């Protein structure tokens, strides 16, 4: 796959973690992403906004090669370069499992496995072949602490993950994603199934997490994007309309289409 070089939308002072370059993606015959380009900065929160169906999830799911699971999906041009390796994630020679080991994901609806709280978090370590009990214990504990869940569950690690409340389940899924120390975590509307209090705690957590990991989050909630992200990208109909520092994009968008969307005149 030929990747265009020299994308220059990066922001000074910030280090690039990944770079989407003129990416085209198809669901069968449907052209879902059209020459999309955007930078992802290291240890920052980048959010993707735009009306429903514009391709936010599609773009997000390119980062961990989730599209590879279904027949008919096609990366058709361009790529996503991961730094510092400087390799294209979408290259057919790159093993999707390797990619997912480094780029983890949290879904829209909490989807804990039908296992205990402990085993849910240990899962991402077990798939990597970790068997040592002490090491697992330590990693599970620190992941649960990282997801601000340890205090609530430390005395019931053997209970089913599904017994937790919705917000706790989502934090369990965050702990599961954190346990393996990924470089990037992808969030696809992680609070859309949660009540306002649980939403606030997840937002707070995401802001804390950027100490450890780079975050890319899809949200249909502009206030959320404004509250938690450093950079924001606005997409429309499979195209990247505008990318910028969050404050600037919301206060002084460069494109008329972006302004219409964020002022609510559209979408």
């Amino acid at each position, binding site marked *: 796959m030929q990747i265009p070089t020299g994308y220059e939308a990066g922001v000074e002072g910030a280090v690039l973690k990944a770079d989407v370059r003129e990416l085209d993606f198809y669901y069968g015959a449907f052209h879902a992403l059209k020459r999309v380009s955007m930078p992802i900065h290291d240890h920052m929160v980048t959010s993707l906004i735009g009306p429903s169906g514009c391709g936010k999830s599609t773009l997000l799911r390119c980062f961990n090669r*989730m599209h590879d*699971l279904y*027949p008919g999906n096609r990366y058709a041009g361009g790529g996503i370069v991961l730094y510092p390796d400087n390799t294209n994630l979408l290259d057919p020679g790159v093993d999707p499992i390797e990619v997912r080991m480094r780029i983890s994901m949290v879904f829209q609806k909490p989807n804990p496995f*039908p296992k205990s709280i402990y085993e849910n978090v240990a899962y991402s370590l*077990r798939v*990597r072949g970790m068997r040592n009990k002490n090491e697992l214990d330590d990693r599970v504990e620190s992941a649960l602490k990282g997801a601000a869940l340890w205090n609530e569950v430390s005395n019931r690690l053997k209970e089913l993950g*599904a017994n937790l409340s919705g917000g706790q389940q989502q934090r369990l899924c965050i702990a*599961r994603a954190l346990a393996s120390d990924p470089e990037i975590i992808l969030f696809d509307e992680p609070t859309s199934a949660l009540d306002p209090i649980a939403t606030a705690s997840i937002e707070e957590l995401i802001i804390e997490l950027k100490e450890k990991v780079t975050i890319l989050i899809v949200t249909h909630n502009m206030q959320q994007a404004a509250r938690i992200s450093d950079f924001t990208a606005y997409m429309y109909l499979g195209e990247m309309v505008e990318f910028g520092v969050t404050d600037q994009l919301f206060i002084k968008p460069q494109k008329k289409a972006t302004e219409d969307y964020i002022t609510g005149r559209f979408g």
Partner: protein
Amino acid sequence: MTASASLPTRLLPSASLGNGVSDRLRKKASRHVKERIIESLLFSAAAFSVFVTVAIVYVLVKESWVFFQVVPLSDFLFDTQWTPLFDDAHYGIMVLLSGTLTSSGVALLVAIPLGTIIAIYLSEFAGFKVREIAKPFLELLGGVPTIVYGYFALTFLTPILQKIYPDLPGFNLLSAGLVMGIMIIPYVASLSEDAMRAVPMALREGSYAMGATRLQTALWVVTPAATSGIASAYILGISRAVGETMILAVAAGMQPNLTFNPTEPGATITSYIVQVALGDLPHGSIGYQTIFAAGLTLLLMTLAFNLLGYWLRKRFREVY
């Protein structure tokens, strides 16, 4: 209506409107009657099946009662011989039970692992095309009359097994059990596959997103998530094995034999029942009554498995 005559006229609806309303009401009422008829038909169908079940249990219990007036329950449970047709009659059900358990055990050793592997393959690995071709074949396998399986065991499998193990008698529980296992595979595979396919995609995606392989996802996430459905499939397989008659009657020899060694011939509860039912024992003789006691034993076993299945389904109810 006479009551309406005394009402002030302004409260009476105009004639045409009144007809419209009552027409509609009548239509509604007739629909109601139709529904009532259908409802009662459905109810009688359900009631009929309950009635039949109760009647079967009643007959079994009543006839077994006659049997147990003559043969003490302790003999039935603990005697080690089953010779109801001899002068020196013994009625130890464990002789038949051993045949049933041995042949079922062999069958399940075949059907459960293979059925589960086929289910995992079809649900998690096979592409759309393979699945569309494989499933009808599997269903065909389940639709073959069991007498055909019986002759297959007797005339095809047993000679092959005798080449490997020359001492194997022509009638044996092993060959019957193996073929019975093949017969049960489709049930176990098909139901387990349904259970696995019902596991939401979101769980699989969660697993893949953590870097899991297909096999890890299938074994560590999908299979545990489908536990209750898979357990039901196993229970159905066990019930089929315990209740299977023709294969054993044809290939296992019908000689009552207290053994857990599958290379010996043996009779099972079911094959004994056909033997007596088709034989010329006078109705009402104690020898004839044995089949009711044996049938009741079979019913209780099946009931126990069903209860186990019910408990497992409750215990491992899928919470997605």
